[in-house]
């Protein structure tokens, strides 16, 4: 530790800390504009000047490291004058438009002008004006207000990785500019207005509609991806104005999906009142009638229950209680992306925190479009990459990452077993092995060179394996994951404290769901098949959209042609068209509740925004459902419900009791007995199907959001993509082509891109090509012209 004196107070900080950080850690206020804890240091604003005893001029505290015994002064008369002058320099060219600027009231420049500025400006010359530019659908620019702190430039370089904001010209002609034709393409663009200390970059969707002091703030948890970020929802009256990150959270940023989904809260897609289908139309009903109809459809029937993983832990418990009370034989499904329901050697969830992943010696991403799926984790990997640490990857296409991947291989999903077997051979040759290795390898005939990428990374002290949707949704997932598990054990990455086995889950609460429903769980595909086969009489769906999302849209449609659907939820979605009854349940922002993110971190939402319609918290809807079907509600208040939750999942109780929310993480499940060997690889069709997860389009909330849908249109890809060789080998040209699967034939617009693996049919826009998602193999053919439609 280095000790120094700040304003005569002795303090200790880690060596290499900057004076500014030392001040911040010790509660000493030093003003600054360009410094940002998450960005590299620029030291250009010169607001953070301090005096160091024995130095002949003031020092910029943000870029000056502390040294032993240093005596720092932060509030001398001479510094006061310096700060006053920095304010005057900044203000000579700053417009005086605070009254019409959205930043007014939360503007560093305005605040410091009051705190450090002179009462009068002495500048009599012309002020400079700057040209605005386009930063995409979420960020508005007003560059005349820019104070050139370059935070946005550093953000684009370092965090977004796009590097498309730059500094043109020099001296006082210097301007911050984006490349105009190419709007900022980042899933994190909404953070730009937050880091801009003035009103140069402002939030576009909420532009000119509210002022900071009119807003009420609500702490909540975002459930738009398994990262489960803390969010602050800002509302004016009943209207949600925007969503912001929460300072001091594990993640400093939030992504555009979590931020701009807010317009869905008040959209026409909401289920705000109970509805019953009459003569083909859903019409408003009162709660009693709706429940009566529900009882008619469900009482004494064989049902399947499907629900979303994103409800609060309390909501999930209530679903279990309802099932046990009314349908003790019912099987449940909550994952629309898992085909293989055999237990996985390591179950969904991360064994490491995202910070630990960023620090590991090696990171290997297997079959995951991380940028679309977990942009914040992607951001951490980017940061790691900038520090020169490797990130390796194997996948079906060159998923865009905006970073340099150190070791990359593109493969077909049917090759995964051969990849793993190849890696096993390599580590075995180095003397590393685990019981079961030989048997596993023997079950695979081929070897794929991409295995080297994996094995090379495994030979290190710490290795974070990030297993993504390509493997999780694979038909033989249990075997692949068992193979990876063996590899990790062989290389010493499976012990407590050094467990690098991370399986990226589909949604929130994955550890809780496994504990709550492990014994009654089925795949969504199985439930639909059962319904289609007449083994079920009805389906209960609690807040998800198997027609719009997931791997089973055609199976879902077939099932719903056969049995009635009771839909409980907050958003109607595409599945709403099939509902016989709709029961409104409050959205994640509208409840008090507990959530668990992919790291096993417990998040608590406790200040909900008000509901607009007749919706009730999910647990109340579930309890009422029990009552109307003649049962007795097992819990009558939130306290009792929480007790029930703790009974079901003691780990949650322990973690919550341990105090500090972030101190105990709930570990994902491990199944020591899950020994699955890879199945023989003969395939019926010549192409593998991989479907894309779309950041802006996935999930019923995102599709209900106009803002996200707009961004989705801007960033859209073609329907289906293949490698040029794939077409060439069949003598085909891009365009309308016939795709054959075991579900039948359909035509799609097929485009070419040479960074998709040959032999893979990449479903880029699931909304358009949804049905191919139901299958894992396909073949293509020239479409018959004219005639046959």
């Amino acid at each position, binding site marked *: 530790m280095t000790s120094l004196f700040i304003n005569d107070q002795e303090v200790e900080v880690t060596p290499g800390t900057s004076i500014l950080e030392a001040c911040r850690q010790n509660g000493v206020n030093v003003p600054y504009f360009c410094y940002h804890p998450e960005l590299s*240091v*620029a*030291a*250009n*604003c*010169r*607001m953070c*000047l301090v005096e160091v005893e024995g130095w*002949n*001029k*003031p020092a*910029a505290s943000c*870029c000056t*490291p502390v040294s032993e015994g240093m005596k720092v002064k932060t509030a001398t008369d001479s510094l006061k*004058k*310096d700060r006053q*002058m*920095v304010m*005057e*320099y*900044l203000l*000579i*060219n700053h417009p005086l438009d605070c009254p019409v600027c959205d930043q007014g009231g939360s503007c560093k420049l305005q605040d410091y002008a009051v705190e450090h500025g002179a009462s009068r400006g*002495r*500048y009599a*010359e012309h002020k400079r004006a700057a040209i605005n530019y386009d930063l995409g659908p979420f960020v508005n620019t007003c560059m005349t207000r820019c*104070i*050139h702190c*370059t935070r946005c430039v550093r953000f684009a370089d370092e965090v977004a990785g796009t590097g498309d904001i730059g*500094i043109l*010209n*020099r*001296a*006082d*002609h*210097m301007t911050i500019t984006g490349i105009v034709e190419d709007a900022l393409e980042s899933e994190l663009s909404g953070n730009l207005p937050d880091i801009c200390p003035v009103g140069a970059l402002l939030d576009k969707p909420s532009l000119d509609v509210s002022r900071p002091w009119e807003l009420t703030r609500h702490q909540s948890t975002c459930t738009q991806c398994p990262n489960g970020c803390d969010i602050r929802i800002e509302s004016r009256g009943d209207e949600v104005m925007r969503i912001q990150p929460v300072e001091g959270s594990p993640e400093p940023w939030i992504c555009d999906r979590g931020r701009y989904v807010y317009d869905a809260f008040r959209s026409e897609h909401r289920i705000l009142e109970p509805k019953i289908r009459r003569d083909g139309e859903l019409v408003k009903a009162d709660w009693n009638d709706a429940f009566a109809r529900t009882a008619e459809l469900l009482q004494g029937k064989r049902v399947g229950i499907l629900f979303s993983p994103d409800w609060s832990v309390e909501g999930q418990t209530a679903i279990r209680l309802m099932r046990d009370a009314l349908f003790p034989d019912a099987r449940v499904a909550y994952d629309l992306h898992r085909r293989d329901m055999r237990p996985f050697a390591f179950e969904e969830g991360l064994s490491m925190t995202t910070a630990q992943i960023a620090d590991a010696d090696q990171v290997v991403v297997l079959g995951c479009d991380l940028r679309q799926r977990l942009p914040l984790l992607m951001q951490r990997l980017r940061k790691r990459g900038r520090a020169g640490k490797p990130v390796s990857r194997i996948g079906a296409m060159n998923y865009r990452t905006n970073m340099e991947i150190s070791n990359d291989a593109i493969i077909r999903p049917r090759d995964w077993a051969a990849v793993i077997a190849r890696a096993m051979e390599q580590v075995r040759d180095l003397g590393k092995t685990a019981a079961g290795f030989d048997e596993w390898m023997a079950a695979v005939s081929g070897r794929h060179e991409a295995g080297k990428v994996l094995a090379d990374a495994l030979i290190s002290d710490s290795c974070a394996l990030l297993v993504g949707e390509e493997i999780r949704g694979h038909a033989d997932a249990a075997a692949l994951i068992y193979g990876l598990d063996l590899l990790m054990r062989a290389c010493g990455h499976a012990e407590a404290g050094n467990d690098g086995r991370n399986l990226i889950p589909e949604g929130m609460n994955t550890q809780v769901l496994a504990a709550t429903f492990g014994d009654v769980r089925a795949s969504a595909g199985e439930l639909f098949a059962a319904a289609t086969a007449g083994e079920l009489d009805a389906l209960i769906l609690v807040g998800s959209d198997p027609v719009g999302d997931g791997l089973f849209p055609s199976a879902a449609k077939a099932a719903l042609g056969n049995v009635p659907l009771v839909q409980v939820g907050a958003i109607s979605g595409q599945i709403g068209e099939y509902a016989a009854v709709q029961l409104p349940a409050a959205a994640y922002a509208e409840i008090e509740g507990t959530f668990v993110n992919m790291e096993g971190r417990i998040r608590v939402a406790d200040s909900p925004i008000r509901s607009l319609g007749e919706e009730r918290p999910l647990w109340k809807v579930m309890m009422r459902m029990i009552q109307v079907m003649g049962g007795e509600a097992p819990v009558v208040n939130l306290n009792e419900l929480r007790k029930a939750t703790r009974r079901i999942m003691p780990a949650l109780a322990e973690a919550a009791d341990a105090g500090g929310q972030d101190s105990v993480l709930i570990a994902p499940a491990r199944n020591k007995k899950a020994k699955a060997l890879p199945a023989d690889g003969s395939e019926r069709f010549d192409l593998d199907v991989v479907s894309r997860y779309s950041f802006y389009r996935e999930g019923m909330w995102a599709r209900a959001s106009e803002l996200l849908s707009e961004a989705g249109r801007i960033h859209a890809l073609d329907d289906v993509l293949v490698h040029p060789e794939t077409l060439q080998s069949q003598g085909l040209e891009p365009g309308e082509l016939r795709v054959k699967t075991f579900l039948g034939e359909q035509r799609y617009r097929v485009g070419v891109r040479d960074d998709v693996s040959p032999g893979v049919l990449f479903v880029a826009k699931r909304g358009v090509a949804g049905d191919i998602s139901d299958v894992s193999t396909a073949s293509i053919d020239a479409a018959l012209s004219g005639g046959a439609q």
Partner: protein
Amino acid sequence: MAIPSDPKQVKQICFDRINIPDVNRLAVARKHGAYEFLPTVLSEFDSARIIDEVKTSGLRGRGGAGFPTGLKWSFVPRNTGKPTYLLCNADEGEPGTFKDRDIMRFDPHLLIEGMIMAGFALGVHDAYIYVRGEFLHEVNVLNAAIAEAYEANLLGENILGSGYGMHLTVHRGAGAYICGEETALIESLEGKPGRPRFKPPFPAVEGFYRSPTVVNNVETLATVPAILKFGGDWHAAIGIPNNTGCKIFSVSGHVNKAGNYEVPMGTSLKTLIEEHCGGLQHGSAPKVVIPGGSSTPWLTAEHYDTPLTYDDMMKAGSMLGSGAIIVMDETADVVAMSRRLAHFYAHESCGQCTPCREGTGWLERVMTRVENGQGTEEDMSVLSEAATHMAGRTICALADGAAAPILSMLQHFPEEVRARLLEKAA
């Protein structure tokens, strides 16, 4: 005239061969002693010995800051696993300075030889000369000389069979004064805008591509061959202690014979101007002398006798800087000069630091008004405060340079400025 074998006769170091026709050609230069001592250095000297000789010589950097060269070299960490780079600062942009240009266009082999020796001492295998973009002719001369040197195995792998190899590349700037600042030069050489980096880390530790890097001025490097040939003590005996050797002074402005003069340190300003430069165009004593390039504070007739050394100039309230002496006689308009220099700094600020970006433009605009007779009394204090609070509060010293002419004008000629303010009323 070759460097004489009796070192005591040496009057000039960098300019010793300058008047020899065609000495830019290797054959001619070699006839006059170029690379004569290089084989000895490569075979008999080692890094420590070279750095010691340079330390002993008392050589201080000729680029402006006057930092002891041997000391700078000794800061370079060894065995970092990264390459070490040597960059020659030939950006020569400081108004009034034009000495490096003459070394490069007339005696490029002197610089190349100095760089090989410095590179050898520092374990450098890739060296660059960053030449300001306007010096196209000098770039061509250097490139031709370098090609000859490669041909003669004075550059490239295994120089003269010594086992030591160094590559030398000329890199042309493109019109930015700030790229003379060493960290801006590094940024520029990395293919970026020339915006200075904050220090620490210093270039010696983390410079070009974050590797250990030494940046030296042309004149500094051109002095090295003589120091090694004749010894550090020989160099230390020229001039006065702590201000040793010769220095090239670029004299311009109101003198009869403007030009470069290499004289021993300690020669007085007056001697240089009266005896070498043929005196002033008008009058007998200068109104203003800017002794070290436009960024250094002004001196007046009162300091005409000051010896040309780093220390004496400091005592007189200015700096020796790059040795660019701008002389103004009694006909000079100090307000116009100040305004012109304000324009220069406003044009050349890299733009990153608030005080410099905003302050230089502000000073220029106020000065323009004052020069045009549209100033107000308050402008005096605005100029003074805006200049004072730029200096010493920014990443690099450009802001200090921008403040100097304004503060000097206000200090020495307040009445002249005030008279200008009143013109409007008249």
